[in-house]
């Protein structure tokens, strides 16, 4: 039988602010790069994102935040995945995130952080790499 593997990622936006331009932009760019993107929309709790990621069996989760709540919410998603037994699903994040937070977030298990200056090619290859790594274990 023909095997047809596709990278599946979930793009979601935890927290209360209602801007989803960034998340939608990434979702479209990933689609155009051949990814299957499960888009869950804005104002999601970390638990909702983790549960959806598991049901959809995605290879990576991408988060977006503009509110400054990333410092709490991104690690909360990592924690929710771990609690649900899915610590192997990598979490990436993007937003207006100051340099010092990036170090903290990476230490909390977020594999990549993107800021408004990150070129889109770089973002896509980071997702591809994260997905590759996940499916090779």
């Amino acid at each position, binding site marked *: *039988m*023909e*095997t*047809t*593997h*596709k990278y*599946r990622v979930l793009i979601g936006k935890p927290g209360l602010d209602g801007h989803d331009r960034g998340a939608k932009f990434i*979702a*479209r760019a*990933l*689609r*155009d*790069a*051949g*990814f*299957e*993107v*499960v*888009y*869950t*929309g804005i104002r*999601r*709790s970390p*638990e*909702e994102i983790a*549960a*959806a990621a*598991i*049901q*959809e*069996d995605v290879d990576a989760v991408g988060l977006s935040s503009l509110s400054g709540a990333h410092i709490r919410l991104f690690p909360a998603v990592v924690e929710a995945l771990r609690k*649900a*037994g*899915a610590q192997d699903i990598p979490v990436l994040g993007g937003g207006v995130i100051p340099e010092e937070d990036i170090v903290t977030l990476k230490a909390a298990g977020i594999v990549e952080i993107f800021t408004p200056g990150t070129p889109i090619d770089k973002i896509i290859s980071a997702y591809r790499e994260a997905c590759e790594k996940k499916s090779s274990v």
Partner: protein
Amino acid sequence: MTIDRLLEGLKQRDPRAIGRAITLVENGDESAQAILSSLDEDLISQAIILGITGPPGAGKSTLTNGIISELRQSRKRIGIIAIDPSSPISGGAILGDRIRMMQHATDRDVVMRSMATRGRLGGLCATAGAAVRIMSSCGCSTIIIETVGVGQSEMDIIRLADITLLVLAPGLGDDIQAMKAGLLEVADILVVNKADCKGADILAMDLETVSRQEGATNQARVSMTVATENKGITELLERIAEVDSEHRDSGEREKRRRGAHDQEVLDWCLEILRPRLLAEITKRDLPLLGDPRLKAKEILEEQ
């Protein structure tokens, strides 16, 4: 995850195992066989499979969300398969139906899966059918399949369903299109959603006229809903239950299950044959001249 752990996980109805099993079958992994033959055939045959189709934006996902809420009140476990088209250029897809159903995201008895068409030639029936089997075997007594009603793959999906709902809404301008596509004939229930919007009554009347002209056996096929306010959902579910019991009594349900089964087997045949045949054709390095149809017949006869 090893295959043994996966099968054990499916028995326990573990969400991770269900998600992974669907992926493996969808990707045509060699473990698909073991997964699909481990399932509970009794549960599969008892489940009711609802197809929900209609033009983009008609409110299919919102309506599905409302149906989930209603069914969850009677503690039923539900499966949802939401299918969106893959981009023919990149092969990627945005699967956005979950947005309208996130209120059920952490409910362990709502098993949801988004699926891209992946440009399969009819093969969608095989993969979506497999997802239906996995979900129903894991205790989902109702399975909803949502598709956008525009192309051939959607018509294929309808074959999988015991009962099909065609969801329309006023002001979309796609209504006539949907009728042309023959969806009106295959739908068991026509739903006019967005009944709170202007033009809903006229649309419902038009639909009733058209379906009467087409000599549909059932005159009362049109249901009205306001999915965003959960209005009309109870009545819609009653209507679905009626149609279901009619279908059971008349043998229609059996007949459709038979049709779906045969279609799924055909799909799997094609999925399995396609790469084999392509390899055979390439191997032969046939001359460019000559009738391709004749060459095909010769190859097939020798298989």
